[in-house]
């Protein structure tokens, strides 16, 4: 097998080492792809919102369709109260989507295949949603852990389970995205390695697998971004409309 499939996830410094106190905040390939994704998003949506023609051109249509897609997703899952958080969920969805998609380019680095990145996003969402919940409902937000219509005997058990499931949200959210991206990219790398090692005679089968996997991975890249955004909406819905 040619090469270690995990080397594609290596982070390496680009340029000099930057240190702030004891922390190393050097510019790396991960930072590069974060910036590329953000710039691509800003470029596309800036172009798509510049002109306001009655009959939109392609890039305007793209921007407006994305806008209505995300706004519909939010209103469907979290209702009209979630409108102030539209910009955050929109940027979250676009950021994850673009990072995933840029990762599909050969030799590119996949930002979202790193647990620390997805975990920071998920932890931010978790803390934010919890803070919103407590601001909106005060200590009544704790009613989230006490589902209605449960027999009193089962209640202690249910409350424990609810608390555990609530606390595991950031972990499940971050690990889902990270594991999906890492597994897909690793698998593609492995099949690519098979193509090389099996040569011109036996390499066609893994090659065809690789082609199919590329399609699947593009689907997954979109799907995981969508799942990440929609789960954020669902958590937000719990915080905004407390009816468990």
């Amino acid at each position, binding site marked *: 097998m040619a090469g270690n499939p995990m080397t594609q996830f290596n982070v390496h410094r680009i340029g000099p080492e930057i240190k702030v106190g004891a922390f190393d*905040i050097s510019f790396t390939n991960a930072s590069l792809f974060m910036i590329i994704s953000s710039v691509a998003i800003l470029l596309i949506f800036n172009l798509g919102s510049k002109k306001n023609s009655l009959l939109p051109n392609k890039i305007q249509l793209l921007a407006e369709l994305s806008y209505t897609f995300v706004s519909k997703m939010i209103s469907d899952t979290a209702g009209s109260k979630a409108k102030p958080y539209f910009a955050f969920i929109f*940027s979250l969805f676009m950021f994850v989507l673009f990072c995933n998609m840029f990762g599909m380019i050969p030799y590119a680095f996949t930002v979202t295949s790193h647990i620390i990145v997805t975990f920071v996003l998920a932890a931010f969402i978790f803390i934010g949603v919890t803070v919103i919940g407590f601001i909106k409902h005060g200590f009544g937000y704790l009613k989230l852990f006490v589902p209605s219509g449960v027999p009193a005997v089962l209640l202690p058990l249910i409350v424990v389970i609810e608390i555990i499931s609530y606390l595991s949200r950031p972990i499940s959210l971050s690990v889902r995205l990270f594991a999906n991206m890492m597994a897909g990219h690793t698998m593609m790398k492995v099949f690519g390695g098979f193509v090389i090692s099996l040569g011109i005679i036996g390499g066609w089968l893994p090659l065809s697998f690789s082609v199919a996997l590329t399609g699947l991975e593009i689907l997954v890249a979109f799907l995981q971004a969508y799942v990440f955004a929609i789960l954020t909406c669902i958590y937000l819905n719990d915080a905004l409309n407390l009816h468990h």
Partner: protein
Amino acid sequence: MIKKIYFQSIFFSFLFFMEAFSAESGGMPQLNPEFWVSQIFWLTLTFGILYIALSKLILPKISNNLESRKSKILENIEAAEKQREDSETKLKEYEEIISKSKLEAKTIFNQAREKTLKDINAKKEVLDKQIDEEISKAEQEIKYLRDGAPDKINKIAIETSSELIQKLIGTEVNNSSISAIVDDLSRRNGDKYYGN
């Protein structure tokens, strides 16, 4: 289906990781904390800038565009509706005018027809009267002539027979005797001669 494939793929890829870990040192680069702080810093920076730029600059513009398009389309629809109503009222007016003028034309036509019919009838009556008068006159003449015809024929018969006798015999015959014979004949055979 996709989910199933996916779980399988994750499972198999973990098998590969095991192999990779045992073969090489380092393992998953994701778990190497060397660049964690850097990643957190750059993620916060880029995502923060992205969020601020999108929420303050770009998304309001897009929502504005969508709103203005919606209102423009609504306005256009309203204007179209108004124009449609206008055209409908105009069409109604036009139809009213048409029906009115049709009615007028009909009454005019009927009046003219009645007038001409009256004229025709009056003239016809006059003509009929004239014709009747002439017919009665002619009938009277015919009657007069017919009534006079047997006397004249008798006279002619008497004269011609007297002359014929004179020429044949050479003597003058008394007209009264001849007339008596003719009268007798005509009385007997009058029906045969005159068809009465």
